[in-house]
């Protein structure tokens, strides 16, 4: 036996070790890989095409009022007349798709990546090969994480480029939920959190369909919690004035209060100016990465505790 092992173990083999595991992961999830590459290509092509429409679309937007006054036309008419619907719809669709990516990733990670393998026993098959369970989970998480980071990152950059300097009336203000998520690093963080939550759900439930459901529910909860409390992630700017206040364009209004203590109307508003985009992005990204990190650590801990 020793003679045989010696002949089949050239010195160069260990280098192949990590690549082998990676290849195995990619090969077993070939369909998912092909589908996501296809989606990436389609989204990139769409964004490049939308970028080419941008200037034409922007030229069409103008100011309006409801009801029409001061020589401005009615907003209902302007929207119908001028906005290049194709551009606006295209950008809105891709923004929604990018900000919902997390759900698809979580469902896949819970169901196909981990849950199904534990249910059918192929995970146990992999663990009794030479790689061991912890390295198996590492590869299962690292390969999709790397692809997701690269793919989502590229799409976010393309999206920002395709939106260009476009008018908020056309593509939505920076603080619109879908626009906010799809134009910054939080998009990547959401995808990674979905992956980690899915993998954890798969390991906890060990069955494909329940794990899919639980991963999806957990991501929905996280996504809507953050969307609801996004405004609280960074201190707001306050402004108080008698009468009514005119907030700057593209201000993310948080509260509006009009107390009348002595019969005099005072307006008090708190809001996020556009300069808060990056602080809000960083805090939300940090929170999501913390969730992803915690879920990943819990997954590893669970696997390590379950196995000798």
């Amino acid at each position, binding site marked *: 036996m020793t003679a045989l092992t010696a002949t089949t173990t050239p010195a160069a*083999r260990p280098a192949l070790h990590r690549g082998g595991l990676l290849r195995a992961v990619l*090969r077993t999830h070939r369909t998912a890989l092909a589908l996501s590459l296809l989606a990436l290509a389609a989204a990139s092509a769409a964004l490049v095409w939308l970028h080419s429409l941008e200037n034409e679309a922007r030229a069409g937007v103008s100011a309006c009022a409801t009801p029409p006054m001061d020589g401005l036309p009615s907003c209902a008419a302007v929207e119908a007349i001028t906005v290049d619907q194709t551009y606006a719809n295209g950008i809105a669709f891709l923004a929604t798709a990018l900000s919902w990516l997390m759900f698809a990733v979580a469902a896949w990670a819970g169901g196909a990546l981990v849950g199904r393998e534990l249910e059918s026993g*192929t995970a146990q098959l*992999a663990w*009794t090969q030479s790689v061991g369970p912890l390295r198996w989970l590492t590869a299962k998480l690292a390969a999709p994480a790397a692809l997701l980071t690269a793919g989502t990152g590229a799409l976010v950059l393309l999206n920002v480029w395709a939106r260009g300097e476009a008018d908020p009336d056309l593509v939505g203000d920076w603080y619109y939920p879908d626009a906010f998520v799809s134009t910054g690093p939080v998009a990547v963080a959401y995808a990674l959190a979905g992956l980690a939550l899915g993998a954890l759900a798969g390991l906890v439930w060990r069955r494909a369909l329940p794990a899919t459901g639980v991963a999806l529910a957990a991501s929905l909860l996280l996504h809507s919690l953050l969307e609801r409390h996004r405004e609280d992630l960074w201190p707001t700017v306050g402004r108080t004035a008698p009468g009514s206040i005119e907030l700057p364009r593209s201000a993310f209004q948080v509260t509006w209060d009009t107390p009348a203590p002595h019969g005099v109307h005072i307006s008090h508003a708190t809001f996020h100016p556009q300069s808060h985009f990056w602080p809000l992005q960083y805090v939300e990204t940090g929170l999501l990465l913390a969730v992803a990190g915690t879920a990943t650590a819990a997954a590893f801990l669970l696997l390590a505790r379950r196995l*000798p």
Partner: protein
Amino acid sequence: MTDTAIEAAGLGRRFGRRRAPALDGCAFRLPAGRVCALTGPNGAGKSTLLALAAGLLRPTEGTVTVLGTTPAAARERLAYVAQNKPLYPQLTIAGTLRLGRDLNPRRWDAQVAERIVAEGDLDPDTKIRALSGGQRTRVALALALGKRPELLLLDEPMADLDPLARHQLTATLMADAADHGTTVVMSSHVVAELEGSCDHLLLLGSGRVRLAGPLDDLLAAHTLITGRAGEALDPHTVVESRTTGRQLTALVRPEGHLGDGFQSDRPSLEEVVLAHLRSPDAPPLLLDAREAAV
């Protein structure tokens, strides 16, 4: 290299607090190089014991040592085929074997794996999904043997194979074990299937070890006797005794000379196993393989 393949001490595994343990206080030693039959009725704990040895379950009590180390550390040197023969349904046979190569880069022997597949007349480009149960078993065994394990743990490996494939695969396994000194543990509840191919026996019942030791020694330790009813069987250990009319039939472990009133026979493996299964209260017999193996 150690001369012990598996050694268990006080090994127990419980699934849930309320249920009876699947394994309870198991202690045995399996020397390396043996082909061990692991048998017992349904629910005796055979699959649990194999999963514990493969490092897929954590014992709730006691320890199990595999190839001189912990099961987790020995994973690279052992192969395990689970009862339901899990394989990736979306891969082809060739893809499955490539997976084995990728996951076992230091040990993979493509020739062995390909030969086992070829012996079953299987096209390497067939998807696992399209295979019958027996064909899947063949691929699972190819994956296990391609790893060149020092210890091969097989859970009901032959259950869905046709007689010809069973014969052929058993021969392949035995040849491999003989050539490379591989230790094989295979579970089955078909006792007759094991007698020709195994040289060691581990009988489980209700999560406990009932019989353990080299097959020949275990058989030699038992005698099937017939005599007149009412004849005293002391001081022999009685495994099972039945009285039909005036005649007494019993399986005993003789302690010294048997009385002249008995006619004694050598029991078959099946008789020994069945007698133990029918008498759950018979004392266990654990022959220390350390001495017997010499």
